[in-house]
């Protein structure tokens, strides 16, 4: 049973560098014990950066993309095993270790298979080609006459294994972009619902999550955050915790405050008892005036995401004009297990274990904060509780680094408490979208304009809380390779629409500031944009009494999109009629559709939501979601379904219930009672149809299905009641207000 977790039990001293081997993963041990591991390259143009084959023929894949609880480990293993023609159990995977794995960028944006997996596929294809050439030479035959099976290359009845060819040494080859990849028609492992390797240990308490990770001599730390976000630490009474058993130290650096103890309970008690006074700070706007505040925030620049024809003229000429404003609340990631990290510092070298989605970025940030050369920082990924974007893990690592430094570099584990997580993880920012459209007499949309108000920060690393509080730097400039060609700002994605119209202009106003540290939570920007666009499309359909699905088809010029919507019509047994439907009763029923082409360039998703709304209480119950999903080539169908189910259910939760509460000083919804999420009795059924296209490139599935949820629900509520919900979350209070105002 692989343990998946690297520890320091066996430390190879090689030229002063620390190399870490693996405890229970015997296979990985042997891979790493090879000389190649000592100076292992992480340069992403090298095959050796991604792959090694040991003397027993065991393949090790090195992935810079990490499994955030999505099943990525299994999928990447399938890709490598398929391309190399070795059985699955002959492939081990090491992920997110800045000393061993290439920097493939953060695990974000639904790119882990699409980009990360394809880099691994190319490296494996290059390796396979090289192995075949070596075998041809050794066997004295032409490469064309060889067969490859189970890690062996065969010519007639003679064969030579990968282990015999390269076992234990390196390939020393550049990844060849033109190396032939396997014909998908021959796939035996990729494209199959291979069971996930991590579920048996997870179901039996044998899996080591980040929160379980321990190193010898480890101390426990807890942070004590300011009572107000911008408050100054005025006074700390260290004597208030002297009698806490196991207490080691109070650590204060600027406004950063924490405690260290020998036991976890000691650290918790000390953090609770520590007496500190903070200055008053009331820099947040009134929550009741949040949207006025957003609208009034200074705009730094505009990003035009689409501009076709002349929308201003077309709009003023249109016989029918409609406008609306949509808003989407501030959300927390709300990982079920709060963030956790362990840091130790030996002879000026930092080792950091965390569940960060971006170990390479974290390494930059820790080096900057601690004023240590980058080469002296190593970050290792250990899977934590589900991660849906840049949450608090990096911050816990920053906290642990400052605490470790204060106790002479001894390893310190920082486990955030629930209030630290809800209160201090970076937030999905508040987003506001204004839309205007014009229709002609035939009911066709002739003009579309939108303006979204989004934070500017885009793709830059989120500053570490510890660095900000302590007044230290934390490397906020994006490393060059992450800057996208298309948009600088992720929050502007999908503000352009997937429909073909004569006159369109969509603009994102990039705001100079936002309330809390903004970050990307499962489909940042695309979620909010798709909510606004797909609800507004429904408004337009309703204004001309058109069937909303047919109305979309009438504006769509995209063969894959059209096929998807047609299949959705069948799957959901869609009845052609306009919304709202007539009918009364205390419990109103409705259906709503939504469609997205992710970033207008990849994964297609279409969905129909069926809801029941209680007119008396304003409660929405989402009964079921029908989803058709096309992400090109599918690596693991059950894995994709699992991601879709998760996207739908999590986003139903966000749509119906979630909203960060705050006063003028800080977040006030600090636990699950004040930030409720969807529970079992409220969960809808999810019926999925996957469109598999083995000969296309694979696209992401980790986020796209989230984007269609709020609009599908809003459109279903309109179908049920004839009222339009334009503000997430759709709480009963808002539903009742909408009914009343109708």
């Amino acid at each position, binding site marked *: *049973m692989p343990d998946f977790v690297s520890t320091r039990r066996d430390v190879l001293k090689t030229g002063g560098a620390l190399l870490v081997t693996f405890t229970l993963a015997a296979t990985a041990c042997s891979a790493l014990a090879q000389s190649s591991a000592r100076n292992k390259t992480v340069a992403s143009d090298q095959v050796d950066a991604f792959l090694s084959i040991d003397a027993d023929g065991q393949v090790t894949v090195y992935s810079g993309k990490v499994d*955030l*609880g*999505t*099943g990525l480990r299994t999928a990447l293993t399938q890709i490598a095993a398929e391309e190399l023609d070795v059985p699955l159990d002959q492939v081990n995977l090491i992920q997110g270790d800045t000393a061993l794995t290439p920097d493939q960028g953060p695990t974000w944006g639904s790119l882990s298979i699409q980009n990360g997996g394809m880099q691994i596929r190319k490296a494996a294809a290059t390796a396979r080609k090289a192995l075949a050439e070596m075998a041809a030479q050794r066997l004295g035959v032409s490469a064309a006459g060889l067969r490859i099976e189970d890690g062996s290359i065969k010519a007639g009845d003679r064969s030579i294994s990968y282990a015999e060819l390269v076992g234990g040494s390196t390939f020393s080859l550049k990844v060849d972009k033109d190396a032939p990849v396997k014909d998908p028609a021959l796939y035996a492992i990729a494209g199959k619902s291979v*069971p*996930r390797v*991590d*579920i*048996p*240990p*997870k*179901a*039996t*308490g*044998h*899996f*080591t*999550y980040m*929160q*379980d990770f*321990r190193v010898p001599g480890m101390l426990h730390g807890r942070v004590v955050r300011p009572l107000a976000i911008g408050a100054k630490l005025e006074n700390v009474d260290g004597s208030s915790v002297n009698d806490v*058993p*196991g207490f080691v130290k109070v650590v204060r650096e600027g406004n950063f405050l924490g405690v260290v103890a020998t*036991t*976890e*309970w*000691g650290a918790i*008690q000390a953090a609770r008892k520590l007496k500190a006074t903070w200055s008053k700070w009331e820099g947040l706007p009134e929550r009741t005036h949040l949207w006025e505040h957003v609208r009034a925030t200074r705009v730094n620049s505009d990003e035009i995401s689409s501009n076709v024809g002349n929308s201003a003229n077309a709009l003023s000429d249109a016989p029918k004009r409609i406008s609306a404003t949509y808003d989407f609340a501030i959300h927390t990631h709300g*990982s*079920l*297990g*709060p963030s956790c990290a362990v840091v130790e510092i030996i002879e000026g070298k930092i080792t950091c274990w965390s569940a960060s989605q971006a170990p390479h970025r974290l390494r930059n940030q820790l080096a900057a904060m601690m004023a240590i050369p980058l080469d002296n920082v190593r970050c290792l990924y250990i*899977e*934590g*509780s*589900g991660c*849906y974007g840049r949450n608090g893990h990096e911050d816990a690592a920053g906290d642990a680094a400052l605490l470790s430094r204060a106790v002479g570099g001894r390893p310190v584990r920082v*486990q955030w*408490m*629930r209030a630290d997580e809800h209160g201090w993880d970076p937030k999905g920012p508040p987003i506001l979208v204004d839309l205007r459209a014009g229709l002609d007499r035939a009911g066709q949309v002739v003009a579309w304009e939108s303006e979204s108000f989004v934070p500017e920060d885009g793709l830059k690393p989120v500053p570490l809380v510890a660095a900000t509080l302590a007044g230290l730097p934390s490397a906020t400039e994006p490393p060059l390779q992450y800057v996208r060609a298309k948009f600088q700002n992720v929050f502007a994605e999908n503000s352009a629409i997937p429909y073909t119209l004569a006159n369109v202009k969509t603009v994102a106003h990039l705001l100079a500031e936002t309330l809390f540290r903004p970050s990307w939570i499962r489909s940042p920007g695309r979620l909010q944009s798709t909510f606004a666009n797909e609800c507004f499309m429904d408004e337009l359909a309703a204004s001309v009494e058109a069937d909303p699905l047919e109305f979309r088809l009438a504006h769509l010029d995209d063969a894959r999109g059209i096929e998807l919507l047609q299949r959705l019509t069948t799957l959901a047994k869609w009845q052609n009629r306009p919304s709202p439907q007539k009918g009364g009763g205390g419990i109103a029923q409705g259906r709503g559709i939504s469609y997205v082409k992710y970033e207008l360039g990849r994964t297609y998703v279409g969905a129909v939501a069926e809801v029941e709304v209680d007119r008396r209480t304003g409660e929405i119950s989402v009964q079921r979601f029908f989803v058709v999903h096309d992400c090109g080539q599918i690596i693991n169908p*059950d894995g994709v379904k*699992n*991601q879709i*189910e*998760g*996207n739908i*259910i*999590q986003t139903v*939760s966000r749509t119906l219930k979630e909203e960060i509460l705050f006063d003028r000083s800080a977040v006030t919804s600090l*636990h*699950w*009672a004040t930030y409720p*999420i*969807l*529970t*079992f*009795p409220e*969960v809808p059924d*999810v019926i999925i149809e996957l469109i598999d296209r083995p000969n296309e490139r694979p696209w992401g599935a980790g986020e796209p299905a989230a984007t269609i949820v709020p609009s599908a629900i809003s459109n279903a509520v309109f179908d049920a009641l004839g009222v339009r919900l334009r503000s997430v979350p759709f709480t009963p209070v808002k539903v009742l207000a909408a009914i009343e105002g109708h």
Partner: protein
Amino acid sequence: MPTSVSLDVNGRAVTIEVDDPGMPLLYALRDNLELKGPRFGCGLGQCGTCAVLLDGEPVLSCETPLTKAANKKVVTLEGLGSPEQPSPVQQAFIDEQAAQCGYCLNGMIIQATALLAKTKNPSIPQIKKALADNLCRCGTHLRIIRAVQRAARNA
């Protein structure tokens, strides 16, 4: 003053020395005994990830003082089965691939085990009700429900 508390954990008699007898059972299991099944999620009794069976009944170990477990039988996720020999409920979760991150699984499997001990063939609403206080952030609910149904069928 350090206190000793004796209890039975997964069939093994253990004695735990603590400075604070009010310390929740969760920390004794995770830190003193290095168990990984019971998990810290909120420490407030709101999420269910820390559940264990105490004399056969599911309790939240984050709000159960260690002293309350004195001389009682505690069963954790590890006590139900192992990767090689999972319990029927654990096997059903594996068969249904009922996990994304899996952080909530401890609470889900402990609650489901307790439910099935009392209710042989629970309906879907009964399953949902039994798990209503257990949060899952990844949205694995449907698979978890299917896993409980499968475990009931296989029992």
